[in-house]
């Protein structure tokens, strides 16, 4: 099946089989390897991308399902080539160790930023419970997201 969608602001067309997962099309066919494969069963959030602005798990999304939609990956969150406030805060707060989970946290952070409201630390902790990090213990990730989204 031929699917066409907007990827990081640009139109793309790609041939996919119905059982192909969005994550594999992004990484293998479109060579955007920023999106990470973690658990494959919707537990870890490493494969999070935005579809029509909302965070979804690309390991549980059929590629045919994004036909006509807008997909944003970690490669596309910056509009001007500079890090977004979320990315900058993650770097500044030392919220990245091995970095494998980071793209997923960035995508959730960008979704929350798009809502244009302030989030408390408690809300942030609850909203990132679908993203697992095995290095940091979350403290610096929460700190970073609070800095970028706390409005304070």
């Amino acid at each position, binding site marked *: *099946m031929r699917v066409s969608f907007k990827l990081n602001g640009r139109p793309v067309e790609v041939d996919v*089989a*119905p*059982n*192909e*997962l969005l994550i*594999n099309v992004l990484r293998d066919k479109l060579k955007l390897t920023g999106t990470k*494969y973690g*658990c*494959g*069963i*919707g*537990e870890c*959030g490493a494969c*999070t991308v935005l579809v029509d602005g*909302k*965070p*979804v*798990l690309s*390991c*549980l*999304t*059929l590629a*045919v*399902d994004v036909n006509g939609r807008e997909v944003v990956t970690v490669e596309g969150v910056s509009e001007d080539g500079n890090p977004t406030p979320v990315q900058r805060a993650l770097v500044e707060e030392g919220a990245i160790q091995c970095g494998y989970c980071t793209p997923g946290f960035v995508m*959730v952070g960008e*979704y929350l930023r798009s809502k244009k409201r302030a989030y408390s630390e408690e809300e942030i902790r*609850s*909203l*990132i*419970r*679908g*993203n697992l990090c095995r290095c940091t213990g979350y403290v610096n990730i929460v700190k970073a997201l609070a800095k970028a989204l706390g409005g304070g």
Partner: protein
Amino acid sequence: MRPSAINYMNTHILPSFEYYEPKSLGEALELLDRLGGDAKVLAGGTDLLVKMKTGALRPKYIVNIKRIPGLRYIRLEEGVLRIGALTTWHDLEEDPVVERFPALADAVKQMGGLQIRVMGTIAGNLCNASPAADAAPPLLVYDAEVVLASVKGVRTVKLEDFFVGPGKTVMQPNELLVEIRVPAKGGSSAFVKLSRTSMDLAIASAAVYAEFEGEVVKEARVALGSVAPTPIRARKTEAVLKGRRVSEEGLIELLRTVSEEVNPITDVRASAWYRREVSRVLVYDALLKAFERSRGGRA
């Protein structure tokens, strides 16, 4: 017996299937009628695709209903909350009308992670028919109904009669759950869930709907999850609660009826004994939470 199916499965890929993307409800119902039991309906995909990856399900046909217009809505009409088949947990999370059904709002907040709530539908949660389905206990205490459509027509089924066993419902292979109907009621309600982490399945969960006169329970409905082959209503306990004061000493002992009404199993999350014991505590907690709410508290 393999220790864990997932260790032996390649969760990187999906097995192949024939794919259908109906553009209307009529087209979807025709397809389901023709393809029968070999077809699975895809909405959020958070249960279906995982089951396909682990090998628990291997459908020949996938009918993706997400392109059907008009199935995604939350409307409060004439005292009934109507939830469409494609309405996600996140849609419910963002709609203030859900706050009028506090037990449901509790379930929405505790459901999975953000991404699962964005993808997963509440109708799918019911169709998946897990005994641990978070949607079930709150909807059961509100006497919710589900609307099932097929080429033959439409029927309405009480949610209480909907579940048959783990993963099994009264739905025929040619039927589609198109709407959930939840009657609005004047009382208070709450849902509590016990799980290791909020991402995890419930060890046990309970919802209580109650109408109070002062401290006295005038009317009570109790439902539980993860403690029987299906989510259940606990009618004996409802009868026990009627006319009692919430502050009554020994009330939690009277709630031993809950432990009699449940029929839990032992699994990796908890033993049957623990589930039986903890389920009455959860009912008690949910009752107190509903009571606090009835007095305007923010419990």
